């Protein structure tokens, strides 16, 4: 594990339209080792999904402006020729999405949708691809995989659909799995099943997993490390335990305080983060959290903080104490 699997440096994504542009991701840096797990948490619109899509070179070229570098096993994903990029997707880096119904093609059978990944990346016969798809369906614990191969997504329950998505993602044994809110649309009991499954598969396949969510509780059971995103930036990165025990950035703290917890005492009043989530249309001249923060310093209003310390906390409070 000397060489890291994924190395993201200075990744920025801007969406331009006629009237304005949105700074969705700004100067994001992180890295992942093979087999490791990282969670990206943050509120809606903070840029988690866009970061994930950028890793696969899937940010729309029509209105998306992307910069920085994404090195996957030493190759710069953002500068790969289209053909190689296509070969990378699904084979080396796979991705699953939040809503398994709309993310599966409604008019293709689930078996087809798994088999086609195999066929897209390996020179195998149709039959072999099908056989593989069946194995995968069994692997993700779809009861009666053989029978249900030809069924369509709408005939599956939410949890099963998500399993199908996972099966398709695992088809070529990727080195990295990106799971963008894989359980948000699911019931609690099913969510638990899917998270268990992902955890098992991670160890079984030795596959690095980037989990994207806004639910701290979910990541606490799943990832080794957490990166907290706010307004397009990673504002804090730490191991899960450390972060939960001692959140550094005021936003992380606020997030934790406003997350309802099943272990908390009954009727405990939550402390919400005041204000509403921000979306940056131009580079800020202050800390983007300044309007919602309860520990504002003068510096906060003057300049956006750089990352401080080993946790790379972007907060002036952490300026001296690294």
């Amino acid at each position, binding site marked *: 594990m000397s060489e890291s699997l994924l190395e993201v440096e200075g990744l920025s994504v801007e969406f331009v339209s006629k009237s304005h542009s949105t700074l969705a991701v700004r100067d994001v840096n992180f890295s992942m080792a093979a087999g490791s797990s990282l969670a990206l948490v943050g509120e809606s619109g903070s840029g988690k999904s866009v970061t994930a899509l950028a890793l696969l070179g899937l940010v729309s070229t029509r209105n998306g402006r992307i910069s920085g570098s994404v090195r996957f096993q030493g190759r710069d994903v953002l500068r790969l020729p289209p053909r190689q990029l296509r070969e990378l997707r699904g084979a080396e880096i796979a991705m699953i999405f939040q809503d398994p119904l709309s993310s599966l093609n409604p008019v293709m059978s689930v078996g087809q949708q798994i088999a086609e990944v195999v066929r897209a990346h390996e020179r195998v016969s149709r039959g072999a691809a099908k056989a593989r798809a069946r194995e995968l369906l069994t692997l993700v614990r779809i009861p009666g995989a053989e029978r249900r191969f030809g069924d369509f997504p709408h005939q599956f329950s939410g949890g099963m659909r998500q399993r199908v998505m996972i099966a398709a993602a695992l088809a070529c044994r990727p080195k990295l799995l990106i799971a963008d809110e894989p359980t948000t649309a699911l*019931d609690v009991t*099913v969510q638990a099943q899917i*998270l268990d499954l992902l955890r098992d598969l991670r160890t079984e396949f030795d596959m690095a997993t980037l989990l994207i969510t806004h*639910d701290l509780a979910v990541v606490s059971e799943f990832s080794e490390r957490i990166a907290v995103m706010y307004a397009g930036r990673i504002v804090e990165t730490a191991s899960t335990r450390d972060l*939960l025990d001692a959140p550094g950035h005021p936003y992380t703290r606020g997030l934790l305080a406003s997350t309802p917890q099943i272990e908390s005492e009954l009727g405990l*009043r*939550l*402390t919400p983060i005041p204000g*509403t*989530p921000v979306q940056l249309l131009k580079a800020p001249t202050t800390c983007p959290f300044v309007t919602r923060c309860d520990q504002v310093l003068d510096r906060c209003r003057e300049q956006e903080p750089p990352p401080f310390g080993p946790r790379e906390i972007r907060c002036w409070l952490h300026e001296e104490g690294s």
Partner: protein
Amino acid sequence: MTSTGAVLRCADVRVVFTPRGLATARADRIVAVDGVSFEVAAGRTLAVVGESGCGKSTLARALVGVQRYTGDITVAQHRGAERRRPIQLVFQDPYASLDPRRTIGFSVSEPIRAQGRHSRAETAKRVGELLELVGLDARMSARYPHEFSGGQRQRVAIARALGADPAVLVCDEATSALDVSVQAQIVNLLIDAQRAQGFAMVFVTHNLAVVRQLADDVAVMYLGRFLEVGPAAQVFAQPRHPYSEALLSAVPRTSAIVDEHRQIRLVGDPPDPRNRPDGCHFRPRCRLYQQSGEPEVCRTRSPGLLATRQQEAHLAACHVTSGPAGPGSVSGTAQ
């Protein structure tokens, strides 16, 4: 749950959906709510929890009178389907529940105008008060929904509901669509409003963690039925029904010690309401059913909601835990 001071009383509420069409098979009928009875007293909150499709929203809609049902629903002495009963609903989707072409002032004023006893000026004044009450600026009443964030819209929706001076407020997943930080704001707002106005609240959700913050009582719903009803403290601490137990254990937790023995995973998928098993509906996914040797009674008889001697208000519908052997604790049986 005492019946004294109950402002919402439901007795054997049942909602059946029959698809229309020339070739309707009986099998296509959906019993979305299957004989639910409960009461909520003023100032108290009943949380209804359960998985997707178990009938929570349908129950909520029946309560507020926009869904045909059989059985009895009484809201503060109003029975049957009167047009204006003091019961209001807050929806899940803050984007869909406000008319995009009407100012929020218009939307908030609707229940006030429907009462028909306020002048125009009074109505405007009341709208302003309501907006302030939910933490918005009274001057915002001339704005349109698209100018607001999801959390603010949900505040508007709450203001609208409060405008009817409800005796009961039903919240159908009112916080599910919101970011955690905003969700906390709304939960707090609801708690405060309830303190101030004293209405009873039925809080429908699948998020058990939120339930902890605001519920006095919890009802666990499965396939249209209540499987367990009881004071929140008791249900959380000692769930009597195996389903409640599994539900609780499935909730991810942030605490360092992951209580391994409490990780009870339900097998199988949420059930299909078109295709309900005989006897106890929960049987196919039930751990106790298997562990206790697949008792005949679970296959043949649907269990009723029963209390225990120790805890009169804590009811559960399980043949095994409240069987002839006397009510035992779930965890006991589980070990």
